[in-house]
């Protein structure tokens, strides 16, 4: 340490230092971290339950629309060779969209 310090004060601080070391303190910290870990787990479980509940609500609301869309695509794809081509084009477009979005995501 290069900074100039008062030697008398330095000596006083050194003489009055207390080196505490006991297992009760270590256990106290372990108890606190354990409590926090349990709390975190509880929060995660509650968040997961909330997410599932939201998903169920959305699925119930979106089910008729999804059913209609799947029916429309099925009819389109199976009706003619042109339909097959359209179906294939839809799949390709989806893949391109996903890849493009992945490229746009900022790198870590």
């Amino acid at each position: 340490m290069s900074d100039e310090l008062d030697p008398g004060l330095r000596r006083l601080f050194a003489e009055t230092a207390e080196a505490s070391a006991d297992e009760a303190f270590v256990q106290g910290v372990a108890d606190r971290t354990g409590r926090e870990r349990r709390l975190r787990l509880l929060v995660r479980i509650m968040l997961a339950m909330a997410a599932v509940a939201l998903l169920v609500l959305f699925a119930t609301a979106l089910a008729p629309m999804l059913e209609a869309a799947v029916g429309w695509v099925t009819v389109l794809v199976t009706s003619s060779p042109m339909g097959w081509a359209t179906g294939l084009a839809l799949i390709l477009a989806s893949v391109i969209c996903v890849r493009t979005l992945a490229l746009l995501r900022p790198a870590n």
Partner: protein
Amino acid sequence: MTPQTLAGAAEASVVALAVTGDDQAFAELVRRRQGMVRDLMRRLSGDRAFAEDLAQQAFVQAWRQLKRLRSPAAFGAWLRGIAVNVWLQEARRSSYRLETPEGDLPEPEADGPAAGDLAAARLDLSRALLRLKANERVCVVLAYAEGLSHGEIAEATGWPLGTVKSNVARGAERLRAWLQPEGERDERRA
């Protein structure tokens, strides 16, 4: 790793293990560093029970942020920074508790009759430290008790170097002035 192996391992290895979520490794780090953190908190707060609570808070904070530690070798300095921040946050939140008024200072906690002089010296210093402003107290304790350079204190507190220098100088000057009469009295007695 068994507790015995952990006790003999290099700190960087124990830190690396604790980062992976190993509880025993973290307990070993607490075991090794508790002296530094508890002494620092005791000097800053002047209240033994409160200091113990703050020291535990600092370790819990470190446990939470352990994954953010970039270099395991820098664990000691990183932990000290966390401890200082825990205390500063507490100082901002409850300054009434940390700025102890005159006449409401702790009694010496002597370990026995032979420890009387040491206990008295601790009490004098503790009383004098409590009279300092919170930011001066942090700088003086880090410089004199922890042996940190002004640059290291600036890093630990996040304050400008000039502020740290003036806090250390002003704080030390005040401490000297408050502790001086005691020294003179001792000299006269001798």
